[in-house]
């Protein structure tokens, strides 16, 4: 059915005006934007320290192994989750046809969450040099969170879940668009994953949770942070903002639900592929490899859906900034998942494991895929939250190309260098330090790419800031899902229904 036909069929009742305040969304958004600039600069500093290891020599809280986990955790929990919370606060009321249950609770959520992130920064950078587990890192990748900061995060997540779920049950639109499914999945999975990853070693007697039990839970958690927290949140964002910004209905609603349930049931089994050839049982590694390949099902269903949706709308890529980010993000999603599945093969893992290849891979997931979708959501939602046009389309374009080219330089250098390093490690005649020296040219390129990405981040933050604070009069009014400000014609949830 053609788009125009669907639009003509929309009942007038669905376009009734609903004034969304978006206060909660704005608070969460600025928390995320502030943190991505901060943690981006930390990441750049980490990449420069590869080239100048004596930089800030003797300053304990700026040593490489302390800023590295802060950069990783900050990007996931300081940038990605707050900005996706903002997207949830923006999307859910519009897709449910009701107001957000409690805007003030939303603001409080952001305050509690950002306090937790700030405490994590303090505890992991650890200028006080303490080994007290209450304040210092837990020492496991992805679960560094000091105990005090974990408490803040869990409290904030409960507040978010109550708020969003209360909005769900008060909805006026019967149809539950797929973005809502992914949001529900993200809310549920995050609670399980975060508690399991961060608490057993503290809650249970130390002796029952040691060694490989600890490692297995660690990697169950580490992989689920990306797969079951960041991925559903990013996909929810894309499933909403892709049809909205391309002004085209979703390709297939059924396909998206297949993707949803397979994502939920397959991702959990992947953790052990981080320890291929490690001391864990052989069968567990094999299971993890098989399930890594099964991941093609949810990935391809999402990617097919996205490309099906923009079929016939490719010309919009020239001028439509959110669409640019979503399409680039979709391509990176396909690439990173393919790469991830093949990395779980023993033959490839034997070479690439422990090398810089993996760093390129993880940045494609968190930057190329998750963050690009979040950028798209910001560029689409912020003008509508503030009811003003975007401050500068040109700056947004610059942001896109700096991020894109910077990232390609960054990861390609690491993939080539990392693979080369893995091959060199298999030659016992080379000393370890000579394989490190061979990586140095690649690390220069990586730092250059990282610098481009960070410049892009500053442009992004400045653009959003000027959009929010500009003195230009507000344009139209952003009502319910039916009435969008600016140039995008009205869409309703029923118009987001699928083509096939």
């Amino acid at each position, binding site marked *: 059915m053609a788009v125009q036909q669907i639009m003509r069929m929309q009942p007038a009742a669905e376009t009734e005006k609903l004034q969304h305040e978006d206060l909660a969304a704005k608070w969460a958004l600025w928390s995320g934007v502030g943190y991505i600039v901060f943690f981006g600069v930390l990441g750049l500093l980490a990449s420069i320290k590869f080239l100048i290891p004596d930089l800030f020599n003797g300053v304990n809280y700026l040593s490489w192994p302390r800023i590295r986990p802060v950069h990783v955790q900050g990007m996931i929990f300081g940038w990605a989750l707050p900005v996706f919370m903002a997207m949830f606060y923006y999307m859910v009321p519009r897709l449910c046809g009701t107001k957000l249950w409690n805007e003030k609770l939303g603001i409080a959520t952001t305050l509690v969450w950002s306090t937790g992130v700030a405490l994590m920064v303090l505890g992991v950078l650890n200028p006080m040099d303490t080994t007290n587990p209450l304040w210092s890192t837990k020492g496991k990748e992805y679960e560094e969170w000091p105990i005090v900061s974990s408490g803040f995060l869990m409290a904030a997540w409960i507040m978010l879940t109550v708020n969003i779920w209360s909005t769900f049950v008060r909805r006026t639109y019967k149809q539950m668009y797929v973005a809502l499914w992914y949001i529900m999945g993200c809310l549920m999975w995050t609670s399980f994953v975060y508690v399991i990853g961060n608490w057993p070693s503290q809650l249970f007697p130390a002796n029952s949770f040691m*060694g490989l039990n600890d490692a297995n839970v660690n990697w169950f958690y580490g992989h689920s942070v990306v797969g079951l927290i960041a991925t559903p949140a990013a996909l929810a964002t894309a499933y909403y903002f892709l049809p909205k910004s391309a002004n085209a209905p979703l390709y297939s609603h059924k396909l998206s639900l297949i993707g949803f349930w397979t994502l939920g049931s397959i991702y959990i089994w992947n953790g052990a592929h981080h320890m291929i050839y490690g001391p864990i049982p052989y069968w567990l590694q094999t299971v993890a490899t098989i399930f890594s390949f099964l991941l093609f099902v949810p990935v391809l269903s999402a990617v097919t859906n996205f490309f099906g949706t923009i079929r016939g709308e490719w010309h919009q890529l020239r001028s439509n900034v959110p669409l640019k980010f979503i399409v680039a993000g979709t391509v990176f999603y396909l690439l990173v998942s393919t790469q991830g599945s093949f990395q779980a093969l023993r033959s490839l893992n034997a070479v690439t494991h422990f090398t810089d290849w993996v760093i390129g891979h993880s940045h494609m997931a968190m930057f190329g895929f998750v963050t690009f979708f979040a950028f798209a959501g910001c560029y689409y939602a912020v003008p509508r939250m503030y009811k003003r046009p975007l401050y500068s389309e040109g700056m947004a374009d610059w942001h896109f190309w700096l991020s894109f080219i910077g990232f390609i330089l960054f990861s390609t250098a690491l993939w080539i260098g990392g693979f080369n390093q893995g091959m060199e490690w298999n030659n016992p005649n080379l000393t370890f330090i000579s394989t490190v020296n061979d990586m140095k040219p690649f690390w220069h390129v990586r730092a250059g790419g990282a610098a481009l990405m960070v410049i892009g981040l500053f442009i992004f933050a400045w653009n959003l800031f000027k959009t929010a604070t500009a003195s230009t009069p507000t344009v139209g009014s952003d009502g319910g899902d039916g009435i969008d400000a600016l140039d995008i014609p009205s869409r309703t949830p029923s118009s987001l229904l699928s083509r096939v």
Partner: protein
Amino acid sequence: MLVYVIPILFVVLVGILLLILKQVPEKSAMLTGIGIGMTFIIGLTFTMLIPSFNENWSQNTAKDASRYHAIYLRSDVEKADKDGTTPPLYKGDTNVEFGKLVGYTAQQERGRRVYQREGCMYCHSQQIRPLKGEIARYSIGTSVVPVADEREYIWDQPHFLGTRRIGPDLSREGGKYSDDWHYSHFYYPRQMVNGSIMPAFTWLFDDTDKNIPVPKQDARDLVSYVQTLGFYRQVYDQSLNGGKGGWRPWLKPQDQQYTQNVGESQVLRIDPNINGGKGAQIRGGDKLSPTNKVIPGGTL
């Protein structure tokens, strides 16, 4: 423990959800939530809990655990910590009452906390994979490096398996180099390994006298932990006991002597006996002479 707690928590959670469900007019959102939770728990049970029944993963069932790691009686460790002595290794049956055994002395455990705080595991893995190139790389002389075994890790909380080798693997590092080598290396790695990009951990040293920094307690604890890595790992050698076979430390004494010598030749010391009695910095030097001082921050 978790084996029982998680299903109970799950049943309680479902019960609460069902109670809420009774009062909510719009049921589909709640039902979806329960579905999501169920899918998740089924996957979780298989990935996390079933492997944990592996009998080599827990202290009270692991066979031959003392061949893979040092084991101490907790009471011995506590007593030795008070007296400032070294606790005796426990050689008996590991199948004793839960929680009576530990894998590290009090000082080594403090060293693990420093290792954790400084983030050593982000650049150094602690597992040798069963790959030809890897075994060749980490073997020394005729001592073939044994690959990682699950029983080596049962004393570790947190685990330091690692995922990245910006620096080399450390799981067989114990005993290779002297404490002096490690102090010099921690203070300024590039004076020991040309081209190294390891951070200089100068805050672990008291360097009010720039010429001769003194390791603080943190550095001493850290080195005492690093020296245990793989040090107590034994391998079965068929040639021992006249062909009957037996266990021996993986690093043979002559190979250990070789790496110690290489390390010693890199350490910077002040030798007071040269340069006409004024003393001067030299590499190596006589380790045994009490007047020779290690210079962790030396510049030769």
